[in-house]
């Protein structure tokens, strides 16, 4: 115990301030000071733990997900073709995440989605090089601009932007792992991120439906409501 105190003494010499503080401590006082320091840091740790633990409130069995907390979910059904249902998650900062809604007909095919190809329309969307805060070189898209083509064993389906804006990013992980679309189309299987202008979004929003409306519309088809 005394050893520790001595080490503390050498570690914490009296500072040499420009404004001389004449604190000439007696040896007993120095030891007392170190003891206090140890106590104080222990005290601070206890305080911290109290703060951390006391703030834990209700712990619901299934808390809302990050998507539910930070995004507003919109849907569009039968976009350009029947069964082509997609979601648009809009963040408070205006960015929209686009993906396949659970009722998209691609999921009905045996084996699910086996392949995705971003080379549609005039260019390969997966070789975008958007840079900088101003998002230079982002492709400007209309709502019916093709994003990609997803293929199943039987058929292939075009996925479109649904939102007019700048295409910031496509999920190129899907190229190597198309099964993400089958397992978690609403999260890691998202397809693209688009940044609409405020005016464009206001107009666009009119053709979209809310989560509630979507659920009603598709209640027969949805077998796993907790996906949402």
């Amino acid at each position, binding site marked *: 115990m005394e050893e520790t105190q001595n080490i503390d003494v050498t570690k914490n010499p009296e500072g040499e301030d420009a404004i001389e503080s004449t604190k000439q401590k007696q040896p007993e006082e120095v030891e007392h000071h170190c003891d206090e320091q140890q106590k104080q840091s222990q005290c*601070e740790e206890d305080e*911290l733990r109290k*703060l*951390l633990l006391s*703030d*834990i409130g209700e*712990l619901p*069995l299934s*808390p*809302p*997900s*990050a*998507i539910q907390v*930070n995004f507003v979910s919109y849907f569009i059904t039968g976009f350009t073709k029947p069964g082509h249902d997609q979601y648009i998650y809009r*963040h*408070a*900062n*205006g*960015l929209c*995440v686009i993906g396949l809604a659970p009722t998209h007909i691609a999921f009905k095919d045996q084996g699910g989605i086996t392949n995705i190809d971003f080379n549609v329309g005039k260019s390969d969307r997966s070789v975008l090089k*958007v*840079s*900088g*805060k101003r*998002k230079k070189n982002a492709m400007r898209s209309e709502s019916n601009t093709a994003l990609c083509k997803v293929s199943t064993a039987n058929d292939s389906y075009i996925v479109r932007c649904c939102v007019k804006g700048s295409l*910031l*990013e496509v*999920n190129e*992980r899907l190229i190597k792992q198309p099964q*993400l679309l089958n397992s978690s189309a609403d*999260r*890691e299987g*998202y397809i693209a*991120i688009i*940044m609409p202008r405020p005016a464009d979004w206001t107009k666009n929003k009119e053709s979209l439906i809310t989560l509630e409306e979507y659920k009603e519309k598709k209640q027969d088809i949805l077998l796993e409501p907790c996906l949402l």
Partner: protein
Amino acid sequence: MSDETKPASGDSSGLLNGLLTGGAEKPQRVNEAARSLDPSAVKDLLSLGVCERCILRLITVATFDSDLATVSSSTLRGWLGSGEEEAASPEMSICIVCLGVLQFVFSDDKQTLVKMKSDCGSGHAAWITDLVKQQGHEFDSFCLEVSLPSTISENERAVLLYLKGKYSNEAWLQSEKVSVKDALKVLVLDPLRASLGAKSDSSSFHIRLTYSKASDDAQGLSETTHERKKRKTDVVYADEENGSSCISENPFEKVYEPCILSVHCNQMPIFFSGRYFKYSRNVSQSRWIIDDERMGEASVEEIIGGSILPACLGDSYKFHAAGREDIDVRMLGSGRPFLIEVQNSRKCPSQQSLTEIEEKINNSEKKLVGVKDLKFIGSECWAMMREGEAEKQKQYAALVWISRPLEEEDCNSISSMIELKILQKTPIRVLHRRSPLERERTIHWMKLEKIKGNTHYFLLHLCTQAGTYIKEFVHGDLGRTTPSMGSILGCRAEIIQLDVTDVKMGDS
């Protein structure tokens, strides 16, 4: 001795009148200055409308320094003029060179004409002192700054050119002339020191005397600096071409209005440092207003700055912190270092008052924010801030939920991950204002703390490289941060809340 004071032959005796009275007391230099005055040049300038001090400045060989400055105007008039000049006309004409600056004639900001009665600088100093005192600063040293209209130097150049033309070989023409600005400083600095009771040096407290041209002057404020500069060049070229004193514009026009003088005091910014704690999940670090609505119920910046500013009687403050946290993240542990910069403080609060401010914030009813080690800090403040930036590690405690029950092996596998490298694409929540990049970051260590009676929630303690997005590390940001807690544990993970538990800053 009397030989030294006898006028040289050929000089008019009126010139040296002032000398003879009490001549033995005046310094040698003043005598010599008086004697060196060329009478015809003096008469010339007087008739043009140049004031006595400017004449003395421009025509003597000696430098216009504090010795010459103490010579009163009436003495000067005695040296320079004949009896007529001494019966000074009630309307003193404004000098065409210095526009009344060296005559201590000016308008105040209410457009009232001010003419100093005592004209050796002390009256002017007293007037300035009044205005300085009104602004309420506490100081023991000051730095005097003078700003004059550019036409004064143009006028001087024109007069010198004219003199060069007429008196080309005189000795007094060759010497370096003291500018009107420096002459004013010489005249006013000593009396100002006395009446303010302060030293004059390169202080952080500035007293600025700004002389500006009266607004209805033709060459006044409407002209841009560019236009004025252009015009200045034109005048000079014209003269050099002609080789005579023919000047395209007449700078010898009578001046009807003196300058407007305003006195402004400014204290250089002072800094206070400390560490802050944020106990609320509804308080932003800095003032955050979107569409006229405040986000959160308060801000750290306003709580701390708003308490310090009144104690300094300053104009405004700026808040700088070593890093930041989201509005819904608490700042606990040792606190985050910050600086408060106060503009134009009138007084510097004592350490005692700072301690009181600290206590007031810490004991406030709502306990939104806490402060520690609040103190005055000098120029080393920026080095201290930089310390907290990119190289340092940050420690956090996150409340995490997973979609499957926690197992014992999870705790072990997580604890064994040291210096884990992760790749984070710019999180979606900031992607609208930051570059889309992929950033590599390091998680130095992690520790899982189980929560009693609950297998789906736990406390994740982790220490990470500065610049790591913790929330995205937990929930994965739709797979854009890899690996994430979810991918490591093979299930879905969500972050419920986050606290910063330590911001390491060097040794402190």
